């Protein structure tokens, strides 16, 4: 398949996923409320304003990680519930292009969720946005989201259609995604100035997150076809 053909497939899959999301509103009516409730529960568990302010970046990213498991399962349930994935296979659709489409759809959904969670942490945990930290926050969040989305999409593809996928997926994703959790949390701490950190401490994390995103996105695009289509 030509590269323009691949881009076309990825674009079609992306717009299809986003359109399904707009229709079903699972993100806005279920996932975002779930993530916000998680933030509230953290506040009950870690009673104390100082602790919450100190741990806010980590809590936001843990909520992200858990929510991403639910979103990606949903993104693949759409493909398997009526056998659309089989139909895609029979149609000979280029699976690496399908990967890029589903990856970008997940990135966009996760970024929406992230904005909501950051606003939630701002309101409930008392984090503060600082001028110089905003660039770091935005770039590191985007890199982290790209990496997280890649890992989730690879393993959700592997787990789609097998028994016990709900528990297998977190088992596979969580250890691999741990550098994302560490990096995104530390970068966010630096951006917010949590615990007296300065913005410059955050830049090395952007490096870790970018390398992770590149390795797993391109690795995923190569592996996705053989994983799904065997």
């Amino acid at each position, binding site marked *: 398949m030509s590269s323009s*053909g691949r881009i*076309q*497939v990825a674009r*079609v899959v992306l717009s*299809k996923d986003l*359109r*399904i999301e707009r*229709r*079903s509103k699972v993100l806005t009516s279920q996932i975002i409320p779930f993530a916000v409730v998680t933030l509230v529960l953290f506040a009950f568990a870690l009673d104390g304003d100082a602790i919450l302010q100190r741990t806010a970046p980590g809590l936001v990213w843990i909520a992200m990680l858990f929510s991403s498991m639910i979103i990606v399962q949903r993104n693949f349930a*759409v493909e398997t*519930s*009526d*056998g*659309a994935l*089989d*139909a*895609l*296979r*029979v*149609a*000979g*659709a280029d699976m690496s292009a399908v990967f890029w489409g589903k990856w970008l759809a997940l990135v966009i959904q996760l970024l929406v969720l992230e904005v909501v969670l950051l606003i939630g942490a701002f309101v409930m945990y008392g984090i503060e946005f600082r001028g110089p930290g905003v660039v770091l926050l935005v770039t590191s969040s985007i890199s982290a989201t790209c990496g997280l989305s890649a890992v989730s999409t690879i393993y959700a593809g592997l787990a789609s259609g097998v028994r016990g996928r709900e528990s297998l997926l977190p088992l596979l994703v969580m250890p691999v995604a741990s550098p994302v959790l560490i990096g995104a949390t530390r970068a966010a701490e630096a951006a917010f100035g949590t615990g007296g950190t300065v913005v410059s401490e955050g830049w090395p994390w952007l490096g870790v997150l970018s390398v992770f995103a590149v390795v797993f996105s391109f690795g995923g695009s190569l592996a996705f076809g053989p994983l799904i289509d065997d």
Partner: protein
Amino acid sequence: MEPHVHASGSPAVELRNAVALISDFPALAGLDLTVERGEIVMLTGPNGAGKTTLLRVCAGLTPIARGYGRVMGADVSIERDEVRRRVGMVAHSNGLYDELTVQENLEFWGALIGAGDDELHQAMSIMGLDGRLASVPVRGLSAGQRRRTAFAILVVRRAGLWLLDEPHAGLDSSARDEVDGILRKASAAGATVMLSSHELDRAQQLATREVRLAGGVVVGDER
């Protein structure tokens, strides 16, 4: 809209001593079958006879562990992608996205393979899906309408070989007649059709040939 006809000299399906395994179970146990172009073949037989596996092998979804198979002139073991491009399959599930409308489902497939708008509209009118139905989300359709949408995708994809797993299941009798009519039309347009069904009397009316499976092999073949 004419289906693609590839290397039309060769049979549509040619399987020799094909063995297909589901885990370690031989769902096909050395099956021989030749289907000529333009036939409408009805697969019958008890549950677990291997009908679904046979259709999946022809679609390039299930590999054969032993034996030899060519579908629409392409080798199922070596040229799997070529096989897939030339066939279309509607299994028990229709492969549709529930949240999208009929038209959007078709547009998705059309965009994947680069079909034009007029081809989509033609497919929709062949299947009686134009007008009001086109903008109904698939989840709101009846079982028969969903099936027709799935067939419309086969038309858009210009599949030369239609592989249908129980296309009559879950449909009322008028919808079944509709399905039969569509299959006759597809056959007249040059497509080869293989379908599985439990309905023997329909087999005699619709099909040009009835192949009976049991135990993963062909046990009866009537034209």
